[in-house]
């Protein structure tokens, strides 16, 4: 590793907090459209997975993501108005963590960094939508005051278990998933010694023809 690269790794310790602070400052500006998109996409899927006829009237955002649902029970009883709400603070944590890690990683060409970051953000967004759906359905199924007719997700997952593990599920999505995505997309694809080639991270540029010829001359 040359001196310039060593210096780049040292810069990681300065760049990472700087990028994190930048992302955390920008997040309040992006928060509303991002979280509302998660909520509205959940709103599209909720009627599909519900056992009864459900209409999503509105999705709003305050400190929590608030849904306004009208449920028409299958036994022709009067329609119900339900307003489940889910926590939205941790959506930002997941996104900021992933973006900060991606931006702070040294030695990655910008084009590759951006394309892979977009891929990661899309995957993370889909996971957050699934978690949102999970939270809504589990909240409705677990609330004894709400006559919820049921849905596909709460049929598969025990509600009691959900209330025991809810905090950890949200932490998994907010902390583990961004780190896992970052590791899988950027860090782990690495060649080790004894694999027939000098160890090189695939996100780094391939050795040029000139340097390849030079190393061949050295081995002769």
């Amino acid at each position, binding site marked *: 590793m040359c001196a310039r690269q060593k210096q780049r790794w040292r810069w990681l310790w300065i760049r990472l907090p700087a990028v994190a602070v930048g992302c955390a400052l920008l997040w309040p500006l992006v928060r509303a459209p991002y979280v509302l998109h998660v909520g509205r996409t959940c709103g599209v899927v909720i009627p599909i997975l519900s056992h009864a006829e459900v209409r999503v009237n509105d999705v709003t955002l305050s400190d929590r993501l608030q849904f306004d649902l009208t449920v028409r029970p299958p036994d022709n009883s009067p329609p119900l108005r339900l307003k489940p709400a889910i926590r939205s603070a*941790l959506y930002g944590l997941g996104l900021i*963590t992933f973006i900060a890690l991606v931006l*702070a990683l040294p030695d990655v060409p910008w084009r590759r960094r951006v394309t892979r970051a977009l891929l990661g953000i899309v995957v993370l967004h889909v996971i957050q939508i699934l978690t949102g759906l999970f939270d809504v359905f589990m909240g409705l199924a677990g609330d004894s005051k709400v006559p919820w007719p049921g849905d596909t997700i709460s049929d598969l997952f025990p509600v009691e278990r959900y209330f025991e593990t809810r905090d950890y599920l949200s932490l998994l999505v907010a*902390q583990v998933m961004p780190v*896992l995505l970052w590791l899988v997309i950027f860090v782990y694809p690495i060649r080790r010694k004894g*694999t*027939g080639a*000098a160890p090189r991270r695939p996100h780094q540029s391939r050795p040029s023809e000139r340097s390849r010829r030079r190393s061949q001359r050295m081995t002769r």
Partner: protein
Amino acid sequence: MVPRRPSLWRTVRAAGIFIVVAGVWFWSLTNTFSLEHLWDPFTRFVAATCAGIFRLLGADVLMLGDTLNVNGTSLTIFFGCNGLEAHGLYLAAILASAMSWRRKLTGLIVGSVAVFAVNLARVCLLFVAAGFDEEVFHYIHTVVAPLVVILFTMAFFLWWDSRDVRKTKAAVAMALD
């Protein structure tokens, strides 16, 4: 010459190890037995260390279980504040990486101490933030503080991993010479 194995397989394997280790770790955080015998004492240890730091700084500290009262500001150290998530992420990342076992073990010891120290700093800073507006404290508590701890943890892992790559590269360069 050892045949070259596709890096996709290595990535999938590393991701699998990460998921299994992180899964077991996070499961243990909800398991009653490990909660009672491991994580509750660990949380109390974090609280006691914080109390010690504040006492060293000359603050009036009262400690009742996991609850600390520092100069009139009272906070309870719950799960999420004890840094166990960051420890789990670090453990999973190190075990799934392509380092030698010796290096993994050294990295685990050194890194765990570093993560513990950063988490202590986070808890201490939360006491300072508690003196501000409630909304500011909430934002720092739920977004900024966990973000700093996770980023530090992963930066430490990356730094440790990069040093290993550097050594491997040096070994390959020596072999070529």
